[in-house]
């Protein structure tokens, strides 16, 4: 596979895509005897929506986990914003500006919607503990400022009515939206979405697609997402990486990938008349 161009391009609808935010070079990830990811290289450019697709077990979630530092590859380099990234703890990587959602929702079930999304602001809240203990003054001011930001996200995702509800009580689709809100609250440079449409009906998928596109449009957030619904991928992704059995078998725009024989054989299949 030839390496994708290292600097920007302009999409069909006129959005400017910048330089690489994330560059994976020859990543290999093993768990004991199993090789989950084998010598994969690709990049994610600033401002684009990059989809990672492939059959189940291809290693997509593992790749996402490598990107946000939960797993450390045995081989390969990771460059974040052009700088080689040493193995860091997940919370350090969060502070660098990477946020994500999870395939099986990882919300804090004991807290309300509002509190959950407020936890997303933690990387931006700096007041000391003493200040928090004494509350009135600096800590309260910061709390109110961040509350305002979170309320903007709540408005954006249209979840005002459930802001005080404990998330455990919310239906699945709304929980996924709250999780998205929590990731957005971090104002990330790179947003990772792990199967954001899983388990949704057509309407919910349309809503979620709209939110993802809006996030990319309004906040200029770079997005990498794993997704199985090819219709969604074709519609919203700028470029696609295809994985199969831990290897990369396709890399390009949705159209290029759709017509790639290897991808068709492994994953897409052909329509029969």
């Amino acid at each position, binding site marked *: 596979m030839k390496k994708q161009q290292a600097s920007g391009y302009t999409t069909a609808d006129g959005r400017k895509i910048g330089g690489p935010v994330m560059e994976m070079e020859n990543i290999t990830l093993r768990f004991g005897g199993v090789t989950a990811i084998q010598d994969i290289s690709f990049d994610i450019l600033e401002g684009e929506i990059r989809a990672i697709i492939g059959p189940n077990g291809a290693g997509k979630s593992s790749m996402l*986990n490598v990107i946000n530092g939960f797993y450390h590859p045995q081989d390969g380099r990771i460059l974040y914003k052009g700088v080689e990234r040493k193995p860091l703890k997940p919370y350090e990587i969060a502070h660098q500006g990477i946020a994500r959602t*999870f395939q099986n929702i*990882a919300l804090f079930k004991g807290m309300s919607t509002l509190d959950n999304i407020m936890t997303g602001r933690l990387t931006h809240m700096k007041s000391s503990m003493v200040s928090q203990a004494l509350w009135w003054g600096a800590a309260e001011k910061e709390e109110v400022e961040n509350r305002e930001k979170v309320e903007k996200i709540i408005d954006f995702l249209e979840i005002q009515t459930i802001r005080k509800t404990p998330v455990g009580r919310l239906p699945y689709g709304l929980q996924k939206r709250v999780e998205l809100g929590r990731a957005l609250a971090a104002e990330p440079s790179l947003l990772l979405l792990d199967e954001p449409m899983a388990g949704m009906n057509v309407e919910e998928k349309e809503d979620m697609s709209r939110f993802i596109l809006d996030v990319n449009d309004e906040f200029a957030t770079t997005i990498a997402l794993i997704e199985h619904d090819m219709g969604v991928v074709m519609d919203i992704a700028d470029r696609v990486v295809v994985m199969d059995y831990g290897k990369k078998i396709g890399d390009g725009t949705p159209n290029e990938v759709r017509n790639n024989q290897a991808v068709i054989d492994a994953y897409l299949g052909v329509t029969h008349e």
Partner: protein
Amino acid sequence: MPAEFYFGVEVFLNGLMAGVMYSLVALGFVLIFKASGIFNYAQGIMALFAALTLVGFQDGQIPFSHLINAIFGTEVHHFGWHLHTFFAILAALVVMIVFAWLVEKLILQYLVNQEPIILFMATIGLAYFMEGFGDLMWGSNVKKLDVGIPQGGNFWIEENTAFLGGEDFYGFYLDNLDIYATVIAAVLVIALVIFSQYTKTGRALRAVADDHQAALSVGISLRTIWVIVWAIAGFVALVAGIMWGAKSGVQFSLSLIALKALPVLMLGGFTSIPGAIIGGLIIGVGEKMFEFLIGAPLLGGATENWFAYMVALVFLVFRPQGLFGEKIIERV
């Protein structure tokens, strides 16, 4: 060989036997934990309650006599008959089975999907309740438990090992009760292992321990299994209660044995029967040897109070699943 060495060996042997007693209690825990994921803090109080019930039946005590006397101003204490030990044990066993059934019906079935820590705290509540209940039912004074097991030092062993170690050494002093306990515990363990490996119910137990959902899907009744498991644990508690009770009298401190079983389980793994045995032996020997070699001479003694926990703590940090337990894997 100097007498000191043989004293050390004696401490070692006593440690082994103390370890067997610990294993006995730990077994009850492992059974329940394997089948339902619950750490039953009440296991110790179950041993106490079982022993109290046994003595109560043996002596023909009237249950709740203290309370009845307080309410009605009467002075009754005993029925006047004495039950033969064999029947008293059977009766106590029946009581423990009823207890198991009640626990499942009133508590466990309502807490099915809760996290382990909630279940653990529920068993603490159960332990407190049973303590008050047991005391109310049979009285809280210390009782002597006699089921016919000989006590005191075993003269045969003592005489026949006196030749070792020269004139300062009088032979290994091993208590008869401890020897009986070891044998009984060994028999019990073998029986339990056979039961779990080779019988249909035992297999069902292992299925439930592995995966509740899967077990349900092959038609195993979770609730029945739980009653069976708690009943077996009750039986183990009865045996443990008899052994410990015969040794030091039936009193409240019996329930604190539960706390001693915890380090045993942490060492051996919560889900392993052989682990409970080996863990118990290691803790038993370790405690006594540590006290003998370091605790008494250097640290002022009574290190047995915390030695087991420190060992367990070290294990928890470096090998959380214990020696034989299943590895705990976390996934995102």
